[in-house]
């Protein structure tokens, strides 16, 4: 057991897979000797050298095109898109090419690749460096999408993503980079498509993801002090989605709250809410409530950004109100 930061876990997860499998390569902007702009990949260049850890020009389409071409010819590349906002300049390669080519070719090709990216707000970077884009990726058929919330999950889900034969969009919550967590020694391999129940309660169920996980847990503690006992599910994987865990835990408490960092409209919780409405309606004791960022571009000022993202206080108050109405 060792204590690692979320940031350190990224390099450890990638290194674990690169040591095991020569076909795993890593490419992106400033990822080599510089170790990444978030210092998430420090040490990889030193250990694996410039052939397997490659700096690229500022060419997001070329980065992802290269990953796709390498994957279709037998390699297992990991590509970094520095900020998830930059997906907007290479979304063709993600949504039209990588996601669809297996289906369109009647299964002639596979794309075992990982696209990792710094996602979400909390760092006061403003609207073009803070978006939470997990729902963009989730709505494209052919992409798997994971969002780890702890150092241990970063390593385990990275390993699962690299070993998976399908393309995985791996979104790291930027604001979690400095956070710490216990990580067991040795190899860690997790499974895609599995949610984790982090807290058991009897009154309400909270489904959440990424940066919102620690906030939901803190809110659950506050609520418990006031007599509302919550289950907290870390959804972890949006595609595949572990709906069985969500349905089971929702039915057990009779209430579901989603806590989402993405802007409101068609955020991932909308899909979860609709599944619960269709499949667990008669177990519900009240409406499903979504707690999200409003449908606005994220503002830069700390005061405003803090109002926009779901806070511990907003989560606790919203749930408290809903449970007492």
């Amino acid at each position, binding site marked *: 057991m060792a204590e690692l930061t979320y940031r350190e876990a990224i390099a450890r997860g990638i290194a674990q897979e690169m040591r095991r499998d020569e076909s795993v*390569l890593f490419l992106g902007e400033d990822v080599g000797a510089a170790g990444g702009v978030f210092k998430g990949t420090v040490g990889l260049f030193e250990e694996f050298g410039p*052939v397997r850890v*490659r700096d*690229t*020009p500022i*060419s*997001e*389409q*070329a980065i*992802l*095109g*290269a*990953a*796709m*071409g*390498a*994957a*279709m*010819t*037998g*390699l297992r*590349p990991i590509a970094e898109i520095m900020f998830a906002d930059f997906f907007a300049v290479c979304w*063709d*390669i993600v949504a*039209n*090419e990588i996601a669809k*080519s*297996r*289906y*369109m*070719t*009647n*299964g*002639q*090709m*596979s794309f*075992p690749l990982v696209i990792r990216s710094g996602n979400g707000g909390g760092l006061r970077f403003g609207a073009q460096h803070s978006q939470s884009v997990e729902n963009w990726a989730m709505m494209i*058929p*052919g992409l798997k999408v994971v969002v780890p919330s702890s150092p241990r999950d970063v390593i385990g889900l990275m390993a699962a993503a690299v070993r*998976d*034969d*399908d393309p995985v969009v791996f979104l790291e919550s930027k604001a979690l980079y400095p956070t710490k967590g216990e990580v067991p020694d040795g190899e860690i391999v997790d499974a895609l*498509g599995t949610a984790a129940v982090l807290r058991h309660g009897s009154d309400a169920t909270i489904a959440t993801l990424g940066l919102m996980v620690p906030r939901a847990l803190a809110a659950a503690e506050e609520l418990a002090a006031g007599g509302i006992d919550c289950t907290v599910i870390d959804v972890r994987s949006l*595609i*595949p*989605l*572990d*709906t*069985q865990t969500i349905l089971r835990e929702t039915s057990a408490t009779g209430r579901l709250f989603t806590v989402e960092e993405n802007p409101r409209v068609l955020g991932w919780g909308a899909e979860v809410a609709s*599944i619960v409405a269709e499949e667990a309606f008669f177990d519900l004791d009240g409406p499903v409530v979504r707690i999200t960022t409003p449908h606005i571009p994220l503002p830069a000022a700390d005061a405003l950004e803090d109002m926009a993202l779901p806070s511990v206080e907003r989560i606790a108050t919203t749930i408290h109100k809903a449970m007492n109405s």
Partner: protein
Amino acid sequence: MTTTEASPVHDVDFKLELYRSQVALRRFESRAYDLFLENYVKGTSHLSIGQEAIAAGVAAAMRPDDWTFATYRGHAHTLARGVAMTPVFAELMGRANGLMAGKGGSMHLTSVEHGVMGSYAIIGAHLPIACGAAWSAQYRGTDQVAVAFFGDGTVNIGAFHEALNFAAIWKLPVVFICENNLYMEYTRTSEVTAVAHPAADRAVAYGLEPILVDGNDADAVYEIARTAIERARAGGGPSLIEAETYRHGGHSRADPGKYRPDEEVALWKSAERDPVSRYRTRLLELGVEEATLVRIEADVDAEVDAATEAAKAGAAPGEDLLMKDVWANGGAEWRN
């Protein structure tokens, strides 16, 4: 700027094969057009009539394990790598016996076993993807080369420039072939392009030699492609080739191409410019018997007829295919 002359030295059997290949592409495409008008081919289709020398000439210079990355105008490039006509016709017709069982359609022809690594319908997207395949060959030391075909209009999209720079800095074994047929869909590329030669004039920006070739001369195309491919194979890095050509017909479907001057169309369709007629004349001048050429043409016609019937005989794809192969496990499940 270099203009490469046709290579004088090819043996006649090689040339006959190159002729056969061009005739096959021409007659396949003519039939595909008929099938579109008869509503057997639905949706869309983009023909290479008039541009056959490029697909045929380049394919002749490729090793079986080299990779082709084509566009929506990719029937010719797919067939030229040895893919049979029946599955291509059937794919155009949306049949279960299609190359991708009807799941891709005319714009996405793919046959991995023939090195046809996809046909791409978003302008320019496959250029960086070809770089990735080339990177893979470089990393694994397999000597394979990736070849990407694209049009003159494609040099104005960002992906082209990202791919060229990327290939140059990593010295990737990739050959970029711009088929300059002078038009995008309905607009002359020169009206919206800052340079006269859309690809060749950009080469220096990526540290590459400008290469212009007569794209309607299969021998010249073959020679230039062979040089570029062997250079890439030997570790010499990428090349950018601009092959000047013309499409006899419209952009797609039943487009009559009325935005082009009649004299221009007539010139490019003339026996002196048309790649198939020119090649036929060249063979006759080399002393090949007319009867030999007629036999090749008759064989191709028979192949096209048989493939048309075999494709038409295919069933519509069944429901079993609908939810198949989104994922590598063969399925489409996204939740438990």
